[in-house]
């Protein structure tokens, strides 16, 4: 006899992600899932972004890595609540581990949580963490063909930071080719040209983050 099921095989992660989403919504906190290849500049972006945001908004960070607490230490130096999540070999964060991290953060006293995923441009796209938005960081030194090569990730992004633009003259990064492929996969995510080195573009990106924070707050207000 044939039994029809229709069940998401990764249902366990989906349920944990929904629980995270619920807990964040209750506290009126926006969570952003920061995804990129290793070394594209996720932590550097946070180091630039957090001082700008912190004048008006309360920031918390969950750092995801396979090993070391180096990234959490860098963020800790900025004086915001941060937790290092270690995956013990896992190449991407999953919702259950993020959930345990959210339990330790003072959510009632935060406006936004950045979840810095494990450096990996392929796997994280497949695992919902309960975030409001996935934000990608692509550095110009990685090449302009990455959106075409990793369509699942680039399709899911709600914003893309193009980092290290101060190095454009030293690379063969073709901005037109990149935009053509990126917009062929994702018509709506805003693109921010940034250099964490010089600070270029950080304020514009911060303004987009603020919109996400405000929407999350309004959402919490609506449920009260």
């Amino acid at each position, binding site marked *: 006899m*044939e039994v029809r099921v229709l069940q998401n095989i990764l249902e366990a992660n989906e349920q944990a992600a929904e629980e995270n989403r619920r807990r964040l919504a209750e506290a009126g906190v926006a969570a952003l899932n920061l995804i990129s290849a290793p070394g594209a500049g996720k932590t550097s972006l946070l180091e630039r972004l957090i001082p700008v945001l912190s004048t008006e908004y309360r920031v918390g960070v969950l750092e995801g890595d396979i090993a070391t607490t180096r990234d959490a230490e860098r963020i800790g130096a900025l004086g915001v609540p941060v937790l290092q999540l270690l995956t013990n070999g896992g190449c991407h964060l999953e919702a259950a581990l993020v959930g345990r991290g959210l339990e330790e953060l003072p959510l009632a006293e935060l406006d936004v949580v950045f979840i810095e995923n494990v450096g990996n441009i392929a*796997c994280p796209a497949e695992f919902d963490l309960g975030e409001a938005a996935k934000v990608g960081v692509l550095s110009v030194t990685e090449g302009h063909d990455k959106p075409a090569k990793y369509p699942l990730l680039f399709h899911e992004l709600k914003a893309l930071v193009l980092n290290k633009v101060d190095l454009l003259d030293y690379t063969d990064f073709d901005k037109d080719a990149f935009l053509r*492929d990126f917009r062929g*996969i994702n018509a709506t995510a805003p693109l921010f040209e940034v250099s964490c080195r010089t600070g270029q573009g950080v304020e514009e990106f911060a303004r987009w983050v603020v919109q996400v924070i405000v929407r999350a707050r309004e959402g919490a207000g609506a449920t009260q």
Partner: protein
Amino acid sequence: MHELGIAQALVEQVQAVQAAHGGRPVVSVGVRIGSWRLVVKESLEFYYEAITRGTSLEGSRLEVETVPAAARCRQCGEEYAVEGLLLVCPGCGGRGGELVRGEELHLSTVELAD
């Protein structure tokens, strides 16, 4: 990727269905995997067979159906089959459509012995 973890989650779900139907032997398991998912069919079949040996699912056949990707055009609203990996509408040329099929990772059927 992650086919072992996916196979393990799948085995748990199938065993739950088996238990709900009197513990009958499972003949085959149907899964639907969207073509945009990063799951290698052969790896999943390999792990499924390996981890079901010696369990109540031993001998059950994994049948993977690949779901072709389809998108809806943001400009003209038409639905179209996705050729390659860019989302370009064959009708109006609109770029960056919204993926409506191709991201599935579902257990769809369990065939139990009569």
